């Protein structure tokens, strides 16, 4: 049964984690500014950068612990069920997974700790949306009372969280690649790192060949890359996109302004951070590996959903808006993976497909549940 006291604790813990993430994000961005990355992807920080990096990591890790406690108490407060029974809980748990993927994979395994600021930004935006979707802790309606909620929904959340991290990498790749190309075009000194044998290329018809050496891209002139990009478009475009999306979905002008400003700030940070980002080829590869990891999980989530639908409603697939949404998201990510191995589509075009696929994922999660409300029985609660 619902325990209001425990639910209150869960909300407090959520807010603490939210603040910790925001501060950690700022620290990570400071750390980024104190970092230099060479073509091999080796990051070097100044002493101040290292210190602030430790602070950021500490905050992110402890924030994650608090967040985990919030999610667990929420489940307990709602009568000992899974803590992803409505959109607020789903968004919160997804943010938890995004931070986990960021800390474990991006920072620890791949040693791209200086990109963590962007991962945390995604988590913070996710948690903001969770706050806007807030619903009191409550029990599950009969349609959700099945062990499939543990299998299907958790798979969808894990895949979405990894896709979100993948999107952060894709967006950074596009930014970095643009900068590299423009600098190359103006100086004719060094080109984009993409296509230089660094990416996970598919077989060439000639058969086995010696790999070309990585083209050395020196971070000699940070300002050149930054100057190659427009300081106006970078805040304006993401700001407008996010503000419009928020306005369309929630019809809340104030929220749209706040979300838009946060996105604009992120745009400015990524503009400022361009010189310190790893080479475009590395980012592209990272985005690909992340998305390729999440894709089978997403596939499994859709299949588990179909099995559940067959068990609960007597049809495995009914082109219900949520099903349709997950389907076009799947198709677009499949298109990304195919484009990545198709001559003439690799690189930027594939990355734009990845961006489209991510937009589809967000539409499936937010817009379908909020916009198309009333079309299907689980709108607003799943």
């Amino acid at each position: 049964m619902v325990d209001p006291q425990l639910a209150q604790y869960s909300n407090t813990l959520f807010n603490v984690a939210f603040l910790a993430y925001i501060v950690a994000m700022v620290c990570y961005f400071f750390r980024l500014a104190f970092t230099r990355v060479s073509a091999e992807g080796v990051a070097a920080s100044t002493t101040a950068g290292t210190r602030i990096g430790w602070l950021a990591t500490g905050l992110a890790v402890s924030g994650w612990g608090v967040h985990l406690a919030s999610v667990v108490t929420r489940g307990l407060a709602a009568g000992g069920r899974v803590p992803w029974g409505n959109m607020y809980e789903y968004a919160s748990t997804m943010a938890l997974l995004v931070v986990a993927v960021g800390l474990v994979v991006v920072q620890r395994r791949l040693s791209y700790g200086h990109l963590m600021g962007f991962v945390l930004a995604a988590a913070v935006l996710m948690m903001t949306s969770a706050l806007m979707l807030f619903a009191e802790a409550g029990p599950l309606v009969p349609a959700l009372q099945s062990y499939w909620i543990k299998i299907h929904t958790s798979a969808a959340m894990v895949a979405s969280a990894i896709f979100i991290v993948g999107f952060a990498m894709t967006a950074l790749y596009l930014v970095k690649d643009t900068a590299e190309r423009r600098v190359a075009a103006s100086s004719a000194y060094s080109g984009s790192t993409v296509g230089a044998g660094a990416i996970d290329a598919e077989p060439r018809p000639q058969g086995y060949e010696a790999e070309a050496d990585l083209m050395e891209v020196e971070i000699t002139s940070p300002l050149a890359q930054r100057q190659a990009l427009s300081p106006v478009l970078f805040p304006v475009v993401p700001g407008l996109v996010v503000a419009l999306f928020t306005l369309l979905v929630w019809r809340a002008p104030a929220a749209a302004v706040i979300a838009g400003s946060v996105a604009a700030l992120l745009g400015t940070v990524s503009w400022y951070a361009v010189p310190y980002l790893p080479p475009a080829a590395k980012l592209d590869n990272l985005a690909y590996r992340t998305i390729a990891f999440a894709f089978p999980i997403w596939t499994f989530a859709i299949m588990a959903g179909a099995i559940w639908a067959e068990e609960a409603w007597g049809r495995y697939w009914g082109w219900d808006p949520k099903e349709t949404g997950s389907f076009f998201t799947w198709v677009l990510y499949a298109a990304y993976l195919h484009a990545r191995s198709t001559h003439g589509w690799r690189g930027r075009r594939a990355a734009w497909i990845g961006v489209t696929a991510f937009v589809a994922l967000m539409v499936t999660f937010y817009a379908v549940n909020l916009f198309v409300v009333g079309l299907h029985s689980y709108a607003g609660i799943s």
Partner: protein
Amino acid sequence: MTETLPREPQAEQAPGGSWLPDIPGPWETAVMAWRWLRRMSTALVLLFALATAAVLATFVPQEPVIARTVDSWRTGVAGPGQGWARLFDALSLFDVFGSWWFMALVALLLISLTGCLVPRYAAFWKAARCQPPAGRNLDRLTHHEVMRAGIDAEAALAAAERVLRRYRRRRTEAADGTRQLAVERGHWREAGSLLFHTAFYVLLVGVVIVHAFGWTGQVNVVEGDAFTDTTLGYQAQSPGRFWDAAKHRGFTAHLDDFDVSYYRQQPFVPSAFVSRVTIEDQGREVIREAPVRVNHPLIYRGMKIYQARFGFAPELVMRTTDGVELFRAPVLLTQSGPFWLGREKVAPGNPAKGMPQIGVDLALLPDASIVDGQIRVNSPEARNPRLAVSLYAGDLGLTQPAPLPSLDWAERDLVGQAMLRPGGSAEMVNGNLIVEFASLPMWSGFQVSHRPGLGILLLAGILILAGLVPSLYSYRRRMWVEARQRGDGCEVVLAGVALQRKPAFAEEFQRIRDQIAAALHTPRGD
């Protein structure tokens, strides 16, 4: 595939003849279409078209999913307007997934997939049987290592072979007597990819079988009542094209009892609802009081009975003051906020001959109380039910093929109103008619379905995943170990190259090098 087609030999141009460009003949057009379909870019464009269709179908209501909203878009009550609705109808946007152009899109994708897969099968069949080729110019490869060992060349190669035992191996000997071990691994990448794509044909077969040979029906039953599994036993059904009506099992399912409970803290959210069903087949009771609830269907002889809907079904009796019973039936009500509403025709009448049509409009308040003259519903449970009965007589449009709730019953046809408690009755129409609220059973709505071929779909799902994972993670790589006799010992060259996942191969190469070095008892990085 960008090469241009060989042109037909230019026809003799008549003097002052046509300057029109050459029109490719039917064969050239077919070949060109086939080549276009086989291109990966085409497949990508088709995938985009598929995604676009799905996006449209998300935001335009779909008739098979939610017919009522589509109707309100067509009549202009909701949606962007009737002009748009006509356009949507012309483009089949209200039924995207049943439209001819969606079918054409899927067909094109399948043709494109086939065109892509057939040559790949052939190439894979060849490549999979091929022995690893001998390596040349090993020192030019990025992954390349020279080691020295105190054992002879043959023993060194044997040691390397033990390390690389999980690879496909081949020993070669060059003309100059250099012995080489060539190894290869990672055919699973292509095999997985082929399996993944082939599984979509299995999926298609499964979908076709389920839809062609399956059957789905809807039935609403009042407590104490029953339905029989025959063609006439259901209120709505959607049989597959090849469904044979003789396949109905003919059993009878009795709804013994229906129970719904609500959450105490959120009183209008049901916590559970369950029907108890007894099945009788050929005069024998085969299943007794089995619970049917959401997520837990009852399966009997391949027919699945799902709990779908429920509601109140107050039993209404109408009789004349002389005691002639005119009507006695439970009326199925559906939920609308805290109320339960429903309509029923009492007498079909014949307005043309001056016989009025008689209908009744009901509203049930499960737990009613009157506070300050306002009617309130305190809980969804039938603790203190009240039934508001409105009797209509006149031309009610009962002959129209429209559902009763959508009919517009005029105020002037209202001939009587009463608020009844269970067991209570009231006189209406100047005391000529007695209306009684006899009892308050529940009704339960079931979806019954027979769906052969689900196993094929499950198999397709398993194949898709089983193919997908190796197609993304496995990678093809080759390595060569060459040993040259140098005095007592030998010089060993290890080299390798990967076609995909190069960073992963870099790690693997390091590991293999260390293992071979250990096997040769040489210091690392010599």
